[in-house]
């Protein structure tokens, strides 16, 4: 240490040697004195003779909190406005312009963050972790659309969600993909939701944010991979309306469940359906349910058989899914940084020519004992084992439920929107000849 100081101080000078040495010794003594008093700095701050004043280190503050509160206010206003436009005005034009506003404000101005979809993870983290403190605004962004959906259906999707608005605006040539494919692809959001909750609960990652195709576009700075993903999604969105909302959005799962039981869901006709079938093909999202006028299409015995099959399907798929999930838990856990690092330490690469990873260097520099890391990793893997059962069971239940649902027919006299999947975009209303 002393040697270092000496070298150091001598470097500072370009003075005659003698004076330099004397100064060096003095400085060294002074530095040593200072070091013993403060033990902070290798080179204590000089005492300037020229009256130099140390400049202040500027620490700019984050975005004012009042603006965050404003975001919530804008969210609530947009939700109220779009709900009024859907249910009272029944005006596609109005919904369209509100969605343009939402895209501009929540999308391009607020850059798509924080959004209600991503807030799932913050809420999960807040519930599972003792230390994470969720901001009020994030909680508001999570709860407000759910509450509105319970009361009025998925009006949030119609014109407030910037992702939905974006896709709604570009769906120029929507094609039908058929109920079978729709149902199969419709399982993906459930899997996405389950994994997002698993990774958020284990403090591993926020995968919804990580694989969000839109934020990169709102900010004009996505990575190449994400641009490719977003490009494919948006291009396909021209022909398949709202691909993210229908086949990826994990928040849509929650909205779907709640919307089924919404109090005042929009209807295609303002009063009576006259079975004119004009709206039949109007929905770009294939959410209009056709009338099923036969009350009991099967004999009593077939109905009973179907019912028993449906009852048996769900626990079977649940167990199968849970078991599969528990088998995959170690692979799922590898996404976690600590588990990955422990794995690297336990099974080092055979190839010694590979340079050491930055993570490994950082871990060695931290001075943390490997045993501590192993203990942490083991705990995380245990969480993933339980999580694997839950996630797998949930996905199994979803698949079982969807299959069971297909066995059942529901009596219905009119053309009605599917309350679960309908985005309340109001397109079908324009086709209905009944206007009052």
């Amino acid at each position, binding site marked *: 240490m002393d040697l270092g100081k000496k070298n150091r101080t001598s470097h500072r000078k370009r003075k005659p040697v003698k004076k330099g040495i004397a100064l060096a010794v003095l400085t060294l003594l002074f530095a040593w004195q200072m070091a013993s008093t403060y033990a902070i700095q290798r*080179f204590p701050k000089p005492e300037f003779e020229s009256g130099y004043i140390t400049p202040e280190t500027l*620490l*700019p503050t984050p975005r004012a909190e009042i603006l965050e509160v404003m975001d919530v206010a804008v969210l609530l206003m947009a939700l109220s406005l779009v709900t009024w436009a859907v249910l009272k005005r029944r005006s596609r034009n109005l919904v369209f312009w509100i969605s343009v506003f939402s895209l501009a404000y929540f999308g391009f101005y607020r850059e798509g963050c924080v959004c209600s979809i991503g807030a799932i993870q913050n*809420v999960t983290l807040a519930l599972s972790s003792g230390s*994470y*403190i969720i*901001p009020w605004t994030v909680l508001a962004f999570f709860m407000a659309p759910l509450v509105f959906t319970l009361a009025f259906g998925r009006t949030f999707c119609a014109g407030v969600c910037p992702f939905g608005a974006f896709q709604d605006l570009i769906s120029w040539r929507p094609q039908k993909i058929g109920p079978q494919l729709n149902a199969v692809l419709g399982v993906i959001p459930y899997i996405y939701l389950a994994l997002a909750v698993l990774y958020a609960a284990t403090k591993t990652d926020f995968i919804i944010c990580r694989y969000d195709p839109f934020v990169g576009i709102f*900010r004009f700075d996505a990575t190449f991979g994400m641009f490719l993903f977003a490009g494919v999604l948006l291009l396909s969105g021209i022909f398949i309306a709202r691909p993210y909302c229908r086949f990826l959005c994990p928040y849509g799962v929650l909205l779907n469940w709640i919307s089924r039981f919404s109090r005042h869901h929009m209807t295609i006709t303002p009063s009576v359906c006259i079975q004119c079938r004009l709206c039949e093909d109007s929905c770009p999202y294939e959410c209009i349910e056709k009338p099923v006028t036969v009350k009991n299409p099967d004999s009593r015995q077939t109905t009973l058989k179907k019912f028993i099959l449906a009852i048996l399907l769900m626990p079977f798929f649940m167990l199968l899914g849970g078991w599969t999930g528990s088998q995959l838990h170690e692979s799922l856990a590898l996404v976690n940084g600590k588990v990955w690092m422990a794995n690297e330490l336990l099974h080092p690469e055979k190839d010694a020519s590979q340079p050491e990873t930055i993570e490994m260097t950082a871990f060695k*520099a931290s001075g943390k004992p490997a045993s501590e890391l192993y203990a942490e990793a083991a705990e995380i893997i245990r969480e993933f084992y339980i999580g694997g059962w839950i996630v797998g069971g949930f996905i199994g239940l979803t698949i079982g439920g969807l299959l069971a649902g297909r066995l059942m027919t529901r009596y219905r006299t009119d053309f009605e929107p599917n309350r679960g999947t309908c985005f309340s975009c109001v397109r079908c209303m324009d086709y209905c000849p009944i206007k009052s």
Partner: protein
Amino acid sequence: MHEGGKDKTVGRRTFIRNGVQISIAVGLGGIATLVATKAGGDEFVWQLDPSKCTQCGRCANSCVKSPSAVKCVHVYAMCGYCDLCGGYFLPETKILDTAAEHQLCPTKAIKRTFIEDPFFQYTIEEDLCIGCGKCVKGCDAFGNGSLQLQVRQNLCDNCNECAIARNCPSDAYSRVPADKPYLLNGFGKEKPDIT
């Protein structure tokens, strides 16, 4: 169930729907209350702990913003005002001047100004800084550690999932309440002497 049966005007489906509506409302309220007990009045911001930072250079490229919202910040109060600044000069530099070929910074973002013999002030020009941490590494290795990487909160988009935090090899990022956004390591407290 029998309540729904009594009232002839309420159908079975309506009754079930009402029931589920109330359960969902109660459930949402429950979740909200549970989460609200953990909610803080403050917004969170991302903070970099310089004592954990290994100056790997990923802050420069991982940020969703370009250039990165992480910049080198000079904590003047910790600076030794060295002539031979480990954060300014390339190692092995003999001539201590402001020639570009002697500078560590790839963007020439550090300004060196003479104060009085033998002391120099080093100022970061934040517009030029890309947050690569090369100077921080130099200052940390040979100096007081007064050059530090910090998340500039006025530049940070405050993403829900910070892309740098995800990429950070030493777990130096954390969410902190917005009223204490900066952690200037060693500023006013002991810094471990690594020599």
